[in-house]
């Protein structure tokens, strides 16, 4: 009878033992979306909502999502519009997604353009958030024309750290000057790619067609 008892006990404890072996965070995703609100680009916020809706539809329970705006000085928690780590239960996660969507809707209705564009500050803030949340897959989406314009006194010309983070530039619109000389656009993207890769990012991608957002979500 005794061996049977031990066997039963072992069977009962097996799930807990196995649970101890697995790292649950390794399967979750963390996405930080930076929305450029400077100048005329603020008008593109409707497209940004499309990306947010895509993320809300595709992120699962346990994943993290944060949306922040890129302003004159973006290295600040104040720029985070909404952030959430979805509940482990799908039904609760759905409720949280609805609430998140409402916050974004409120932001989209009252968006104001800023004078400068501090993308680097936003990247540093995003990396900080993602490293704290520590999901399995970390992704930063930059919804911007990637034209950084820093205000007076804003220092960003130092190496940044984006170790283990995927960076996606989405809807990188062409400026009037880019149309005159396309090399400016290409050089700008090449500069950002170099900067991001040197910072330790695992992936760099540019997605201009919002119909192909599948790459934004990390493959599980």
């Amino acid at each position, binding site marked *: 009878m005794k061996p049977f008892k031990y066997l039963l006990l072992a069977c009962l404890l097996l799930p807990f033992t196995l649970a101890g*072996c*697995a790292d649950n965070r390794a399967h979750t995703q963390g996405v930080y979306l930076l929305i450029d609100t400077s100048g005329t680009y603020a008008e593109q916020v409707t497209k940004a909502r499309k990306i947010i809706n895509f993320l809300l*539809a595709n992120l699962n*329970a*346990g994943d993290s999502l944060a949306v922040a705006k890129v302003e004159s000085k973006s290295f600040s928690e104040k720029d985070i519009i909404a952030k959430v780590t979805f509940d*482990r*239960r*799908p*039904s609760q996660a*759905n409720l949280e997604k609805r609430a998140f969507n409402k916050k974004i809707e409120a932001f989209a209705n009252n968006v104001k353009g800023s004078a400068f564009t501090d993308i680097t500050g936003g990247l540093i803030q995003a990396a900080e958030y993602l490293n704290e949340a520590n999901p399995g897959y970390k992704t930063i989406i930059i919804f911007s024309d990637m034209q950084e314009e820093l205000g007076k006194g804003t220092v960003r010309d130092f190496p940044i750290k984006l170790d283990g983070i995927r960076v996606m530039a989405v809807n990188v619109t062409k400026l009037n000057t880019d149309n005159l000389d396309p090399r400016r656009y290409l050089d700008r993207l090449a500069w950002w790619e170099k900067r991001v890769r040197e910072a330790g990012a695992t992936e760099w991608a540019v997605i201009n067609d919002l119909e192909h957002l599948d790459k934004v979500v990390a493959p599980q």
Partner: protein
Amino acid sequence: MNNFNSWLFWPDQVALSVLALFFLLTIFLYAARTPAHNVILALCNLVAHALRFTARWLLHTAEGLRQRNKSVLLAHGQDEVTSQVEREFERVTALVRKELGEYPALQRKVMDELTRIEEDYQKCGEVPPPSPEWVQALSAIANLKSGGEFSKKLLEDLHKSVQKVHDKTIAEYRRTYEGRHKILKNLMPVWRSVDKSVKNIDANMVNLNGNAKAIDVHMARYEEIRAKTDKSEHTLAISAFVQLGISSLVMLIAVGGAFINFKLIALPMSEMVGASDYLTNSLRTSDVAALVIVLMEASMGLFLLESLRITHLFPTMSSMNDQMRKRVMWAALILLLILASIESSLALMRDMLIADKAAMLHDLATVQPVVSDSLLTNIPMVGQMVMGFVLPFVLAFVAIPLEAVVYSLRTVAGVVIVMLMRALSFALRFTAMIFSRLGRILLGIYDITIVLPLMVERWVIGLRGFAPPAKPGKLTSGSAS
């Protein structure tokens, strides 16, 4: 190239260097001919012997395994036939107890009915009308010579009396006939009853005859198995193969059912144990929980059928007393019902979760779709709930093919292993034969490379008139048979 040059005595004269090398090599090979031949033959002999030994061992083991398989197969077949004979005897017993157990009563009934029929038949016998004795009296009176008026009057009176008696007799005669007809009419149900009873007995006898024939067939099989004939072994092995094929097919269908079952509850289980929890790097806790529930349902079904003595996978359960067995049966049934109810609820929850996610996606979409609240939208939900409740019970019946697979797989695996071992043994013997021949071939090849010194040797021996040297030792067991 440098490597090749290092072998040349005179690198600038390649041909000469190669010739010198060839000459030296030939000398060396000729000098080492006898030991080299011995080594080649010894190696080939070694390999051939080792292979032949392994082949013999495999054949011997295969034979042992075949004998063991045969014993198990015959024992299993014997058990099977025994249970079939027992079942036939049970049928006969039931038939005799149910139908023929009442035979004395039936016989008494039939006899009573026959007696009644006979009595009634006697009653129905035609009673002849009273003999007309008055005809003699009438003749006597008619023969009177001096009758005159007196005799005429007497005859008239007689005529009247006779007429009266005749009418009375006819009426009586008709009344009697009417009574007989009534008796015959009342006999009809008795006849039918007797007919039915006799037909029943006849049918029972036919059934008994059928059972007796079946028992004869089983007994013949039993005797064959007892005699351990190859035919019975072959029949049982074929039967095991067929059983395995059919059971595997049914199991495959059951696996499909289990998969559907799993899909029904995997999503709602994530609501209970969390969607982002993983047991291992690729194993979701919710999936494992759903799988555990499905397996538990199958186990409960197994216990249920085991306690009903439909399957015999657990000897402990078969040997339980009836009271304990019934308790186990009720416990398994109740647990199965609970699990089926849980699954039905989970199926409902699954539908709700899907609907909730769809609603959320609709909320996110810019264009709101028209919400349909018709009966059609409820059909999948009801279907899922019904499936969730029914599938566990369907899965319970997997125990029957599972038992067949377990029993037949042993036989089939045994037969296949024996065949494989024999095939391997044949392959090894064949390889051993090749190696034993290979030794001679290698000796020939060796001699070809030193053909020039050998020719010289033969020439010298020929000049001196010596007998040729003895050939190197032959293969000690050259044949691979």
